[in-house]
């Protein structure tokens, strides 16, 4: 009834009316404004910090430094290594040093501008150095994380190959460029607790960090997700929440923060720039024999989600293909560049660029059609992945290729410069090789209204609606019977972050479990067979206390062997194939993406319209990654220099869904948020090669780079 239906989004009405309360829009009587003083140097000692200028500005109430922190001055999703406020040293441009709190925004910003900092500059490390011989930021060395995957014998595999292709691929920093910059409000409630409402992807995690920062128990803190204007991984780390909590704790007044766009670009984590040495071996018939991948990445001065990215790219090194011999290394290295962190796909979009380019070159060398080599090697049920996991179910990769195959076979270049490319991917749903459970609560509340309490954060991707559909389907009640209550640590249990394409699959399953509990109760009470109304059931039982049903799901995965990376990193994988048509103008190097055919194995489609929205958005982000997006420290300060695709840059998009149901997922569903993006840049690049015969080994392939490639091809001819 509700699964597979294009239900309108539950949050759409408020959003079209303009009444949705984004973090940017939160206001309170008597609220103050806080802003951050940030390092202007990539690496320096703080010799002297003079705040007298700030205090001289009328209306500046307080300048907060690390000394004002009652608890731990470190945070981090995976390692607690990043200071909220720098103590004696800064390690990147944009690192927070002070928080200036004033009566209003103008005053606070003026105060921040008047702080004088005497920096003792230290040579900055601006290039990742894997040798360990160069200058290092930490005494412990430059290596932040090192993960490997070993399967079979890659040297033997290479020796048995008829063709070997080897290239180095490079990518750069990408900004999330969510349209709502980091923002939030904090205050002390009637009970004396600290309340933070912010633009975030994870409320329970933020509460943990605030608790450590202020050294107060989590029960004394409430974190609420305001309507959030996009996340894409950039609102997973603590942004303004820590500063707000600190300000509220010190001043006991409501405090509001909102980053400027420039501040957001400066301070937010970035997609990891990766350098990928990739070697592929295959036999004459196209069967892949060996893949050797050596990846080096720039993590900046702190870990953020680096460990997760590092492991995930190693695990996904081969792409969605069965390869008997795999050797994958990924090293992330510390630098004084921007902090790299989580961004849609956790490194896999960069890797897809490499493995898909490689596969096309192997196919070219063998005289094969690119789709045939993919079908031949594609993972399917029974395949063994690079980590030795046997795919026992829900492996519809080849089916995604079959969906676009008719269009691929019928492709025709309509004019000079037109070209077609394929890009494929697989993606493990949820965190890699670690427990990542979600909880959910379903309640029979007043007047028999069913209330779904979830801690899952709706960041635009549509989790609210998907979770609601799962609850409705499980319960078999009417839409109007169910109320959604989400994004509040007071009323929900930890659902984990809205990241890793995990909420539909993991929170969805938890919601289903909770709803099944209520369903059993309602069945007992006569709702389904005796026609007893929900209100009657509620009234008959309400004296026994709240009717709460808990749901919990932790996907069945296992840790990976440290030395070999072997194990079961994920319970399930999403698969996708994109076919892209481009037109390259040789005179200018301009590449226009004309059309994309995108096929995704989503397990089970909960809401096809929402899935299509995710895929179209992923295509846009992939077009940006392929052709224009490039964060250059010190140069791309705002949207005037950091270009993301506009409506005129977007292709037409045809979406095809494959539903190879995942037995552990809610109604068979998996996830699609990141898969939507991952293969897109790869397919653009392969289409460019098809169009003008040049190979692209570095992203973005913007007009200048592409024209340069076209020109050098002319001269080598």
């Amino acid at each position, binding site marked *: 009834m509700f699964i597979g239906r294009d239900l309108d989004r539950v949050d759409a009405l408020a959003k079209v009316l303009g009444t949705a309360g984004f973090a940017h829009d939160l206001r309170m009587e008597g609220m103050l404004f806080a802003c951050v003083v940030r390092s202007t140097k990539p690496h320096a000692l703080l010799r002297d910090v003079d705040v007298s200028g700030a205090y001289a500005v009328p209306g500046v109430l307080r300048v907060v430094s690390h000394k004002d922190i009652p608890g731990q001055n470190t945070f981090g999703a995976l390692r607690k290594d990043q200071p909220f406020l720098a103590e004696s040293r800064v390690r990147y441009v944009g690192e927070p040093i002070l928080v200036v709190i004033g009566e209003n*925004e103008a005053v606070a910003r003026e105060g921040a501008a008047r702080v004088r900092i005497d920096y003792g500059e230290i040579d900055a490390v601006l290039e990742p150095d894997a040798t360990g011989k160069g200058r290092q930021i930490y005494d412990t060395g430059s290596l932040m994380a090192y993960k490997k995957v070993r399967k079979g014998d890659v040297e033997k595999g290479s020796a048995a190959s008829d063709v070997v292709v080897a290239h180095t691929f490079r990518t750069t920093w990408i900004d999330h460029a969510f349209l709502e910059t980091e923002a939030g409000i904090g205050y002390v409630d009637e009970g004396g607790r600290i309340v933070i409402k912010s633009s975030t992807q994870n409320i329970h995690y933020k509460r943990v960090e605030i608790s450590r920062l202020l050294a107060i128990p989590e029960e004394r803190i409430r974190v609420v997700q305001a309507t959030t204007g996009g996340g894409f991984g950039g609102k997973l780390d603590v942004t303004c929440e820590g500063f707000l909590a600190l300000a509220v704790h010190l001043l006991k007044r409501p405090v509001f923060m909102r980053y400027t766009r420039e501040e957001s670009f400066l301070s937010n984590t970035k997609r990891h720039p990766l350098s990928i040495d990739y070697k592929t071996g295959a036999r004459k018939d196209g069967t892949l024999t060996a893949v050797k991948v050596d990846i080096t990445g720039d993590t900046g001065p702190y870990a953020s989600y680096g460990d997760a990215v590092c492991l995930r790219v190693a695990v996904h090194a081969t792409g969605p293909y069965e390869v008997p011999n795999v050797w994958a290394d990924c090293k992330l290295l510390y630098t004084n560049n921007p902090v790299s962190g989580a961004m849609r796909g956790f490194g896999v979009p960069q890797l897809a660029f490499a493995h898909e380019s490689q596969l096309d070159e192997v196919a070219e060398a063998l005289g094969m059609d690119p789709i045939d080599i993919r079908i031949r090697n594609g993972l399917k049920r029974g395949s063994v992945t690079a980590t030795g996991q046997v795919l026992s179910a829900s492996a519809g990769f080849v089916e995604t290729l079959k969906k676009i195959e008719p269009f691929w076979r019928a492709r025709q270049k309509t004019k000079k410069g037109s070209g077609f490319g394929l890009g494929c991917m697989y993606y493990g749903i949820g965190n890699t090789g670690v427990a990542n459970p979600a909880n959910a609560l379903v309640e029979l509340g007043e007047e028999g209204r069913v209330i779904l309490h979830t801690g899952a954060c709706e960041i635009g991707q549509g989790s609210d609606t998907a979770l609601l559909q799962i609850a409705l389907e499980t319960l078999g009640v009417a839409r109007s019977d169910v109320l959604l209550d989400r994004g509040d640590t007071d009323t929900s249990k930890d659902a984990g972050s809205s990241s890793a394409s995990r909420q539909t699959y993991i929170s969805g399953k938890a919601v289903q479990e909770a709803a099944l509990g209520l369903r059993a109760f309602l069945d007992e009470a006569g709702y389904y067979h005796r026609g007893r109304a929900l209100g009657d059931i509620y009234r008959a039982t309400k004296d026994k206390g709240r009717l709460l049903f808990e749901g919990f799901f932790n996907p069945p995965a296992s840790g990976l062997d440290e030395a070999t990376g072997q194990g079961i990193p994920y319970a399930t994988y999403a698969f996708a194939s994109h076919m892209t048509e481009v037109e390259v103008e040789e*005179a200018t*190097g*301009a590449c226009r993406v004309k059309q994309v055919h995108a096929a995704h194995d989503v397990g089970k489609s909960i809401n096809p319209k929402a899935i299509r929205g995710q895929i179209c958005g992923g295509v846009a982000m992939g077009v940006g990654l392929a052709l224009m997006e490039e964060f250059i420290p010190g140069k791309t300060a705002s949207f005037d220099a950091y*270009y993301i695709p506009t409506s005129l840059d977007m292709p037409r998009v045809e979406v095809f869904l494959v539903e190879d149901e995942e037995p552990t997922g809610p109604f068979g569903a998996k996830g699609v948020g990141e898969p939507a993006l991952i293969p897109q840049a790869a397919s653009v690049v392969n289409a460019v090669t098809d169009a003008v015969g040049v190979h692209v080994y570095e992203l973005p392939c913007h007009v*200048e780079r592409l024209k340069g490639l076209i020109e050098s091809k002319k001269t080598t001819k």
Partner: protein
Amino acid sequence: MLPPFSYIAVHSKQEALTSLASLAGAALLAGGTDLLVRMKKGETHRYVIDLTGAAELSGVKDRGGTLRIGSGMTHARIGAHPAIAKTCGGLAAACSAVGSPQVRNMGTLGGNLVNASPAADSIAPLLVHNAVVTLESIDGMRSEKLERFITGPYRTTIGKHEILTSVEADTLAGYNEGYRRVAKRAGWAISRLSLAWALNDADGVFKDVRIAVGSCTPVPFRPREAEAFLAGKGRERPVVEEAVKMVLDEIRRISGMRPSFAYKLPVVRDLLLSVLGGDSCS
């Protein structure tokens, strides 16, 4: 947030000229898409004189052989103006390509010229039309060729008390005219390079060739030597190639060799080859 200033709305050109003459430290506000961005980044002015109410600065007049275009005309209005489309097509095309729809609704021709960005879209086509700007002050009026008016990146000859009130451009009937910009994305982008042209040819012979290159040299420019070389010559590949070579030489002579030329010169070459060679590339 903007630094503080006193806001003055004028209701006529005369009032604008008087205010400008009498107030020290005044900036003129037209569309605001350049001025206010600069002010947000710290530029300060004691007074901001809003020209929106000066109706004389708007409108287009056909003066027989030339079009006089009011400096207060927005890019959107120029792009949609029938007379401009007919006899000044490159300008209409350029103004329709400026920034974004909102920028075109707000920004004006006068603002674009006075700002004098090397990437300003309106300059190259106006050079092709031998445009002359009219500058007025309380003391009088003067006219200057556009190519003289702009002296460098973001630099013009405008006096402290002058307002650029109108632009006069040759009407070019019977010319094949166009404008082409290259940018890093398809919408809402700054021109990396632009090219305006107006060609008059008959029976395969160039009668008059006008070319202007933007975003390449400090000021968009007309490669006069190449234009003169082409006049009277047949539209043949070797001729076109020679002319294109002359254009590239002129660019190098003006600017020296710049890192961006590794990209820009081959693009100018290829676009010009196709424009002069008779391919449609606009």
